[in-house]
């Protein structure tokens, strides 16, 4: 096992397209790091550079203490799991998993031992004799992972391995992958565009957009303390609400004011805003979880609104309300019932309010 380090890595295609821009990133030993971002953000390019499948335009890649920037993939001691499995369809599961070992001139017995061990860890021992063609998606992916595990590499690299499986299977595989990571204790770098997956699996997440690293942190950090509007809007389902507002000072107090609402900002927020010298219009961000809704005005729910859509979801419900011409998504308890068109009163949990600079998108409240 080893850590992985990228130092000022750039990747340019055709001299024009900057897929990855000055990336400094570290994945600690035994850590599960997710590279998360929308399509085209550079996460796959980054993974492929770590693997050696793409050349680094500028900068260096280190695995352990070795500089591997110009080392070919087969000598980097990495194993990769692909989205489309890359399995040999007409060979058995056993042969597929054994393949990387046979190249290394191991004894029959050694190979057998390792294959069976990997199969056990992945619960596919009963499938060893079957041809890969006859397996389902989830099973195939486990064979793909088996083939990677069996080599006991320094680093596991996974490129959206479960994104095309159907929802229930994906949830199952998520649990298994996480559990696998705990048992095998392998340094893993995992690429995905699904923030739910990243939040569930990762020790730390590196969020990327348009080739640039936006933020690296634990799921909680990213969820509660996003450094900019992109991360705030990307992480969390349902997505964070954004409203335009202005800062208004009244005596000692500071308010965030927008069309239809006025929120008193807590002391700590005020101090930080003063420090960053912010003024002008900004974007207020608040998660649906951090909004309260009621059918009548109250101390917790002072802002008037109108229900736009009510979506029951079992133990919780989603209410979309309209304030002036803007829509807000609120997550409320399952017992709360309302109807489109009904009056509603909402409240903002002021300590969970984020304010983002309208131009740079930076979070002014951190």
């Amino acid at each position, binding site marked *: 096992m080893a850590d992985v380090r990228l130092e000022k890595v750039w990747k340019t*295609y*055709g001299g*024009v*397209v900057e*897929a990855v821009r000055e990336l400094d990133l570290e994945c600690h030993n035994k850590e599960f790091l997710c590279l998360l971002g*929308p*399509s*085209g*953000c550079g996460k796959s*390019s980054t993974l492929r550079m770590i693997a050696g499948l793409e050349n680094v335009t500028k900068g260096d890649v280190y695995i352990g203490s070795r500089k591997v920037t110009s080392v070919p993939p087969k000598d980097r001691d990495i194993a990769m799991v692909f989205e489309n499995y890359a399995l040999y369809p007409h060979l058995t599961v056993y042969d597929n998993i054994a393949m990387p070992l046979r190249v290394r001139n191991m004894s029959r017995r050694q190979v057998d031992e390792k294959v069976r061990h990997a199969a056990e860890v992945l619960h596919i021992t009963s499938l060893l004799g079957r041809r890969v063609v006859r397996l389902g998606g989830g099973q195939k992916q486990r064979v793909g992972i088996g083939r990677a595990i069996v080599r006991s590499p320094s680093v596991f690299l996974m490129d959206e391995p479960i994104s095309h499986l159907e929802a229930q299977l994906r949830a199952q595989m998520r649990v298994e992958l996480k559990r696998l990571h705990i048992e095998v204790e392998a340094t893993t770098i995992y690429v995905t565009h699904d923030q739910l997956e990243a939040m569930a699996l990762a020790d730390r997440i590196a969020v990327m*957009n*348009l*080739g640039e690293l936006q933020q690296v942190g634990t799921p909680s950090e990213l969820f509660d303390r996003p450094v900019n509007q992109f991360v705030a809007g990307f992480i969390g389902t349902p997505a964070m609400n*954004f409203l*335009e507002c202005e800062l208004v000072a009244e005596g000692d107090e500071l308010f965030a004011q927008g069309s239809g609402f006025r929120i008193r900002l807590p002391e700590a927020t005020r101090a930080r805003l003063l420090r960053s010298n912010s003024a002008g219009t900004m*974007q207020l961000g608040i998660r649906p979880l951090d909004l309260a809704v009621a059918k009548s005005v109250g101390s917790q729910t002072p802002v008037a609104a109108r229900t736009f859509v009510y979506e029951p979801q079992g133990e919780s419900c989603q209410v979309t309300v309209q304030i002036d011409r803007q829509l807000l998504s609120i997550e409320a308890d399952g017992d709360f019932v309302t109807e489109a068109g009904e009056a509603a009163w909402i409240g903002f949990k002021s300590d969970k309010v984020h304010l983002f600079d309208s131009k740079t998108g930076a979070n002014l409240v951190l």
Partner: protein
Amino acid sequence: MEAVEAFKQERMEQAARVIRKSQLALQRQRYSIPSKFGLYVVALLFLGVSLFPIYLILTASLKNDVQIFARPPVFIFTPTFKSYHDVLLVRSLSQVRFIANSLIATVLATAIAVAFGSMAAYGLARFEFKGRKDLAFWILSTRMAPPIAFIVPMFVLIKSIGLLDTWWALVIMYTGMNLSFSVWILRGFFMDIPPELEESALVDGYTRWQVFTRIALPLVKPGLAAVAVFTSIFSWNEFLFALILTQQNAKTIPIGITGFSSSMGIHWGPFMAVGFIAILPILVFTFLMQKYLVRGLTFGAVK
């Protein structure tokens, strides 16, 4: 805010597209320079060998007798249209009747093969009925026997109907021989169209026939083009049946050309002229159809 989001989304999609393109371009570049050069040489050689006969025929048709036999061969000369004049306008040598017969037989056979072939193919592709697979296979099987095996029975049959030496006989034969190909090719194309496209129109009030003409046919243009090209080439060049089933009135170009090779020797000039006239329509037609053939199946499912 929405506009910014949309803009960012577009930027990202654009970036993704450019990345994909560059990646593909890079992959292509991986061929080394020497092997690319080698490829070009081979391609040019092949081209040369294929085009040379046509070049030969064309130039010979524009030369006079002396120039044709000149040794060393004459490459620069003043072209003369005498051969074409002889072949088209001089009564005893006139090929016009043959050209007309070829045209009629080819055009009709192609039209019928495309029209009826597409309808049959659509039926086989879309409708469930008993014996569907058997019928499809039977249609294919008609093309499995070598034509020469049934040339005699066909002769007897055509003669008894009284269609000997008419272009009807040729149209019947050529259509019959190409219909199976037409049906099979077009069936495949129709099956590639996602059924939802047609179902959507049916729900919206279109009849099956309207769905066939307005949605299915436009989407199988490459298939129609392929069938048209294949059928016309076949019909235009067909020799065996034309020889047996025609005597005087319905002779086609391939038969007409043989007239230039008699016991008295080969009359080269006019021979070459007719040869070129025989090649020209097919060359032009295929060249025009090429864009449909090459466009391929990008008009397929929009998912």
